[in-house]
Every structure is written in structure tokens, then in C-alpha cells.
């Protein structure tokens, strides 16, 4: 872990400029929508000095990405700068034509986008797309020079075998590799400022750490200023010397990272810090006394208390076993071009037990087999061998009818709240669907149950008539939870169920899950790559690597006395794990 304090010192070494590199004053941005003009930035002002690393933190909709894209005038087509000024390297940006802007982009301001999957053009080779950037910024002129400079750019970004991979297409690269390509492109012309918009939020924690460390090294060597946009407070504090906290289009607080974390002034900053799950957090317990978690979110203080409350020991070891998995194995055959195939063992003889009313977290990087394991347990993927016993019933060789009945006792909640709800159906219909499928034919009974479920997930009854696109991400995930609970299941499989949510919303959903577990005695199988979340939800943890379970234990054991280096590596990769938080 980098020591945040020494980083501040090194980053503040005086540059050759006498003024700030970036100076944003009273910036106003609005978006034209069908309902009229919506203001996204309301008087944003900040300065950045050469070589400085600054992070803008906030939840989605806070205006942090809008600020970043406004700097290089890449706002969506319905967005426009209403007032204010942006000066970069002594030059006013507001009012520049697209062609004038093109001479700033790439050369003076580099940009690393969020999603490595969608930011490279799928029909052109990776080499082509890097060469294009090299040519556009006048870094080389003959074809040969351009090619060798492009290879150099990729090698600097950490692609050791760049010359061999130039002709390959983006889909032949892993997410981490693509992000390296994008970082290479962003830094190709040695810009004075690099804007990194959530550069690693789509990647695994361990990959994230390697890539950010590398980015740190490159920008430090070249004295490049970096503007980080992130929703992850831990990551921001670890990587940036200065933090800017944004909320509803305004900067609510700004200052040196360490100071801001240890002594936050604004209530919003305080609630962000309280909601960020970290290593210091404790298991959230259901608040059985007052289970009306508020959707609006003003009650963050109460939530924060729950985080840090030392929970009483639950006697889960005596409860009956709800899910038992024995030597579960899944082998896929992978096509290797031509007619050859090769077996790939995705899940390799894993065994574990989850007791009723408790939570087991299955953690690992992508490709570790955790999602395949979850799919097999849900009966969505046939296992190659091994046994899955749910509530005393072995899934092996079970009849279709018995499987159908078993499904009502075991329900999933998936990662993406945008993709897992049918956009054409109302919320009420979505929640009632499992009831209808499983033979609740009386319409009024279904309606009553929908009402009850909405109440359980703390959503207003009126939402039943609305459609998914009218809801926020957090509300949608509550709907997904309500749908999963419709049939009163014993087991809920949560596959990265909170990974797509902002910290504040994430904290609310986690609290809701804890309340429901307490109230209904639910058993959770929690699939995630985010160990910080595991800390606050799980009773027991099973760590997966390459299809095998490498370590199991109670959450405290794993976090305090991890035995395997792999587990330790996962723990170290949690952003902000070395930071002292305000309590």
C-alpha cells in the first residue's frame, strides 16, 4: 500500500508553470430533455496544479462524469455549457470549435474511459486504434515510425507482447488488457492532464490494483496531472492527494485526502464515509426493532451505527444445513479453432455447507468459477459431477416437476438491476410473475402479496403501477429482491447483487438484506468479488481460485488471519484498505 501522506508531498513538487494547469470557474452545465432543461452542474469551481492527482467523488448523478467530459467538451449531444469558464494550460476551452478542441484532446488532455469493453471499436484491430492516436497527435509520420511508436505506447502501458498482439481485435483481449490499451492511448502523446473516468470500476480488485499502480508510476515519471473520477472513496483516497466531493451538481467539500477522510465537515461526506464498507466494518445485523429502512436515505447516521456496532454472536453453528454441496464439478469443452476442443474445469470438486439463516460468501476473481457454481446450485447449469443438496433434496437426477417445486424455495438476485427486469412490464407484474407461475391463480391474493412484498423492501405501494425505466438503480434492485422473496424461499442466491450500486444505495440494500434475513430466517449464498462487502454481510467465507475452494472460514478468521497468500492478495487489493477512516 502506498502511504497517502508521502504521496501528497511528492505530488506537490513545484512544476514549471506558475499558474494552475486546470482552472474551472462557476461552471454550469445543463441537459435538454423532453421535460425541459435539467441542470447537471451548478457553479462548479476548482483548480488543479501540474503533476497533481485529484479525485472527484460522488454517487451517480452527482455530476462527476459531467465535469470530466465538460473539460474536453465531450458532453452527450443534449448537454451544453451554460456559463462559466474552463482554462487548461492557460487556454480558455469554453467556446472552442470542435476542430480547435481536437488539438487539445489527446495532446494536452488524455482521457481514459470507464468501460474497457465498450471503448474500443470492435471492428478495428487494437494496433490500428493505437496507431490512429499516434498519427492524430503528430507523434510520428511515416508508417513504420507510427507502428513502432504504437508498439512502444502499448509496451509502456504494460502489454509486454505488444508487437505480437497489434493485429488482434479487442474481443481477443481480456478486460484488464483492454484497459491497458486505453491507458496507453490516453498517455500516448504525453498529455499534461489525464482524465481517468472510473478507469477500473469494471475490473477485478486484483487487476484494478496492478493497473492503478502502473498508471501511478507512468504519471509520476512524466509529471502528468491526473483527474480521477470515481464513486469509490477508498480508491480515491488511496490514489489522489486531493479530494473533491460532489453532490447534486455541486462541490460540497474539497481538500487534501487524508484530512478530508479524518475530519469530514459536510454531512454528505460524512454519510459517504460511513456507508463505505471497509476492513474495519462489522457484520450488519437486521434491525428487528425498526425494520423500516428509509428509501430516501436521510437516515444514514442510523445505518452508520449499524456498521460499526459490534454484533452479538449468532449461534449459527447449531442451525440445520440449508445448502450442502459435495465435490461439485463442472467441465466445459472449449473450442480451440478447427475441430479441436479442450476441456476446461470451471469448478473443481468444491464442497461447502450453508446453515439455515446464515450467509456464505463465495469470493474470487472473475474466472474463478464462482458464478458457474451459483448457476449449478440454482439448477440453471447441469453439473458434470457432484451433489447439491438443498433443504434435504438432492438435485442429482431430480424430476422436472420436483425441480420446478424446488425453484420456489431457492431464488436468485442478479447483478445488473437494469438488465434483470423486463422493461415492458410494470413493477407489480414483475413481482407477481413467480406467484402466477407457481399456481397462485387468485388475482386479489397476488395483489395483496405484491403489496406486502413492496412494504418489506421499503418501497411505496404506488410503485407497482410504474415501469423499470422510471426507477433508480437502488429501487430496481429492491424490486429484484422483492421478486426473489415472492414465493417465500428459504435460500436466496445473490450473484454480485450490490456490485452495480453506489455506496450509499449499496449500504441501504445491504441493510435491507440483513433485516430480511433476520425477519424471515433466510439463507444467503452471496457471490461477489468485493471483499469489503463480504466483511459486512457474511458469516462465513469460501475463497475460490481457478475453480477450487482454497480457503474457508468465518468472516473474522478470513479477514484477520488469512492463511493463503491468494486470500491475502485479494484483501490487499481492496482500495483504501490501508487508510484510517473517520469514525
Amino acid at each position: 500500500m502506498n502511504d497517502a501522506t508521502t504521496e501528497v508531498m511528492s505530488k506537490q513538487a513545484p512544476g514549471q508553470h506558475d499558474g494552475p494547469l486546470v482552472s474551472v470557474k462557476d461552471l454550469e452545465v445543463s441537459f435538454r430533455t423532453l421535460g425541459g432543461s435539467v441542470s447537471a452542474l451548478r457553479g462548479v469551481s476548482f483548480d488543479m496544479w501540474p503533476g497533481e492527482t485529484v479525485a472527484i467523488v460522488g454517487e451517480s448523478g452527482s455530476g462527476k462524469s459531467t465535469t470530466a467530459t465538460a473539460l474536453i467538451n465531450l458532453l452527450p449531444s443534449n448537454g451544453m455549457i451554460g456559463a462559466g469558464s474552463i482554462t487548461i494550460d492557460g487556454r480558455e476551452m469554453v467556446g472552442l470549435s470542435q476542430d480547435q478542441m481536437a488539438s487539445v484532446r489527446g495532446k494536452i488532455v488524455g482521457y481514459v474511459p470507464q468501460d474497457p469493453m465498450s471503448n474500443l471499436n470492435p471492428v478495428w484491430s487494437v494496433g490500428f486504434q493505437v496507431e490512429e492516436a499516434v498519427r492524430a497527435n503528430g507523434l510520428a509520420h511515416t508508417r513504420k515510425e507510427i507502428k513502432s511508436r504504437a508498439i512502444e505506447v502499448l509496451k509502456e502501458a504494460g502489454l509486454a507482447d505488444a508487437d505480437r498482439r497489434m493485429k488482434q481485435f479487442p474481443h481477443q483481449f481480456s478486460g484488464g488488457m483492454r484497459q491497458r490499451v486505453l491507458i496507453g492511448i490516453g498517455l500516448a502523446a504525453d498529455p499534461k492532464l489525464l482524465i481517468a473516468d472510473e478507469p477500473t470500476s469494471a475490473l477485478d480488485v486484483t487487476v484494478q490494483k496492478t493497473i492503478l499502480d502502473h498508471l501511478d508510476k507512468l504519471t509520476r515519471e512524466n509529471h502528468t496531472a491526473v483527474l480521477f473520477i470515481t464513486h469509490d472513496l477508498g480508491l480515491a483516497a488511496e490514489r489522489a492527494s486531493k479530494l473533491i466531493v460532489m453532490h447534486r451538481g455541486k462541490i460540497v467539500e474539497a481538500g487534501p485526502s487524508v484530512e478530508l477522510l479524518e475530519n469530514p465537515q459536510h454531512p454528505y461526506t460524512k454519510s459517504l464515509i460511513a456507508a463505505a464498507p471497509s476492513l474495519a466494518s462489522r457484520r450488519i445485523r437486521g434491525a428487528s426493532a425498526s425494520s423500516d429502512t428509509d428509501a430516501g436515505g436521510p437516515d444514514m447516521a442510523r445505518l452508520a451505527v449499524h456498521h460499526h456496532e459490534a454484533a452479538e454472536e449468532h449461534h449459527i453453528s447449531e442451525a440445520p444445513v440449508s445448502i450442502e454441496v459435495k465435490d461439485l464439478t463442472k467441465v466445459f469443452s472449449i473450442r480451440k479453432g478447427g475441430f479441436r476442443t479442450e476441456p476446461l474445469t470451471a469448478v473443481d470438486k468444491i464442497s461447502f455447507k450453508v446453515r439455515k439463516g446464515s450467509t456464505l460468501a463465495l469470493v474470487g476473481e472473475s474466472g474463478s468459477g464462482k458464478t458457474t457454481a451459483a448457476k449449478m446450485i440454482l439448477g440453471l447449469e447441469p453439473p458434470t459431477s457432484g451433489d447439491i443438496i438443498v433443504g434435504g433434496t438432492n438435485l442429482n437426477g431430480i424430476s422436472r416437476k420436483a425441480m420446478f417445486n424446488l425453484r420456489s424455495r431457492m431464488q436468485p438476485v442478479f447483478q445488473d438491476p437494469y438488465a434483470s427486469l423486463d422493461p415492458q412490464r410494470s413493477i407489480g407484474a414483475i413481482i407477481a410473475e413467480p406467484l402466477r407461475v407457481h399456481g397462485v391463480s387468485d388475482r386479489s391474493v397476488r395483489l395483496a402479496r405484491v403489496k406486502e412484498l413492496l412494504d418489506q423492501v421499503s418501497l411505496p405501494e404506488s410503485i407497482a403501477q410504474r415501469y423499470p425505466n422510471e426507477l433508480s438503480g437502488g429501487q430496481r434492485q429492491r424490486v429484484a429482491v422483492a421478486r426473489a422473496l415472492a414465493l417465500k424461499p428459504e435460500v436466496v442466491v445473490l450473484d454480485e447483487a450490490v456490485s452495480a450500486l453506489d455506496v450509499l444505495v449499496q449500504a441501504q440494500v445491504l441493510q435491507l438484506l440483513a433485516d430480511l434475513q433476520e425477519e424471515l430466517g433466510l439463507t444467503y449464498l452471496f457471490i461477489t468479488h468485493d471483499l469489503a462487502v463480504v466483511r459486512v454481510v457474511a458469516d462465513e467465507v469460501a475463497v475460490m481460485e481457478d475453480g477450487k475452494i482454497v480457503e474457508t472460514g468465518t468472516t473474522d478468521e478470513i479477514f484477520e488471519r488469512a492463511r493463503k497468500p491468494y486470500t491475502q492478495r485479494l484483501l490487499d487489493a481492496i482500495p483504501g484498505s490501508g487508510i484510517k477512516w473517520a469514525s
Partner: protein
Amino acid sequence: MLRYILRRLLQAVPVFLGTTFLIYFMVFAMPGNPIVALFGDKTPNPAQVAALEAQYNLDQPFFMQYLLYLKNVFTGDLGTTFSGRDVNTVLADTFPVTLKLVLMAVVLEFFFAVVIGLISGLREGKFFDNASVVLALIFNSLPVFVGMFLAQYFVGIKWGWAPVTVGRDTSWGAMFLPALVIALTIYVTGMRLMRGSVIESRSEDYVRTAYAKGLTSRRIIPVHIARNSLIPVVTNTAASFGALIAGTTITEGIFNIPGVGNTLYQAIIRGENSTVVSFVTVLTLLYVIVNILVDLLYAVLDPRIRYV
């Protein structure tokens, strides 16, 4: 890739057998003895009929006839017409004419679809876009033959810019007018596909990243927006190429073009079964081949499919 091509070729086999079987069955299940029909009003000598039946394998059971027919097709023997010409020669005479017409129509169609679609997509909701959508609706709702008569009347007769009908002169210039009319009646689908995917591509993340690299619109529009949007348009055009080869009968009739469609039409009217079957078989084969080429083209355009 090899695996992909082989699989597509294998899929073509049942398609080819199924269609030829259906055509063969339908034509020969029709009432009347083709040999007797050959003699017209005259009453043929039964021995002569039997000899001819043996010659054309008509004394065999139906299924044998079909197999023998297939054997002939694969050895390049498509039979003869009633007037005694080889179907092969007739095809060799008419096919190039139709191919020329369709090629010209398809190139024009592609040009209209791409250019109009691209500009419309880039100026979504502006005047050009609205005008092109209205125009497309007019061309699309006008029946093909009405468009052709209008073209003949105005361009051919009133203004005299092009020959009214084609006839013997099957040069590129003579067939430009019918090709243009075909293109105008079919470019709409391609234009809509192009427009839609241009609008979609414009807001893709990789387009924003391309701007962030420092590229200008002059490069981004052709390289990142148009190139990606071409995938559905090219495949649509290629598919309409296959459909047009067999579907120019009306056009060839109206403009009196001595192509495949016209000949096929005449053969159907005269009841020349063997000619009909042979022509349709060749067209089916062609259609299947064009479709395989379309699929391969898709793989060429989209590297994600190429490397499956």
C-alpha cells in the same frame, strides 16, 4: 473459420434437396401427360409416346425420376426446351442480361442506402432527415409497376432521356433506367438500417474515445461511425441481390428485357415444364450460394464473428 464455412455448406444441402424436390413434385404432379401435350392437337402414336417416355425417364416411378433428374443436374445436363434448344444455352443467353441488370440495381441501391442513411443519421431530426424519411415512404408505398410506368412515360417518352424499352440492346446504358427504378423501390430498407445504426454508433463509447484521442469528425465519421454501420446494410444488400436475380420478372416484362425472369415467365405460360424446373433449380442453387456468401461477408465485416 473453416468450421464455419463447412457448417454453412452442409446446411445448404437439405435446403437444396428440399426446394428442388418440391418444385419437381409440384410441376410433375400437375394433371396431363407432358408427352401428349408435346403433340398439341395431333393424336400421337402410342409406341412413339412410350419411346419418348423412356427417353425422358417418364416410365420410371416418381422418386426414380427425381433422382435421375438430380443426377443430370449434377452432370451439367439441364435438358432441352420444346423448341429443341439446350436449357444450358438458353441460360447462357439470358443469365448475363439479368445479372447485369441486378448488379446495377444493387450497386445503386447500396449507394442510396449508405449515403442517404448516413446523412440522415448524422442529422437526426433535422430537415434532411425528415425529407428523406418522407421520400422513402413515397418510394416504398408506390407499387413497383406504377413506378416503372411513370419512369417509362416521363424519362422515356416525354423527355426522351432513355430508351423506353430495352429489347435487343442490353448494354449498361440501355438498362440504367430499369435498374434505377428497382434501386429506388428497394433502397428504403437499407437506408433505414444505415440511419438507425449511424444514430446508435454516434453515441457509442468508442466514438467518444476516438474524439478524446484527438481525432476530428472528418476521420471519425467514415472510420468509426460509417464503417461500423455498414455491417447490416451490406448484408441486407447482398441478400436482396439473391432475391432480385429471381425476382426481376415484372421489371423484365415491362421493359422487355430478354433476361431470366422474362424467359421463365414465357416458359410458365407455355407450360414448358422442363425449362421451368431447370430454371428454378438453377435459381435456387444461386440463392443458396448467395446466402452462404452473405454469411461469409458478415464474418469478413465483423471480426467478432470471424474468430468464433
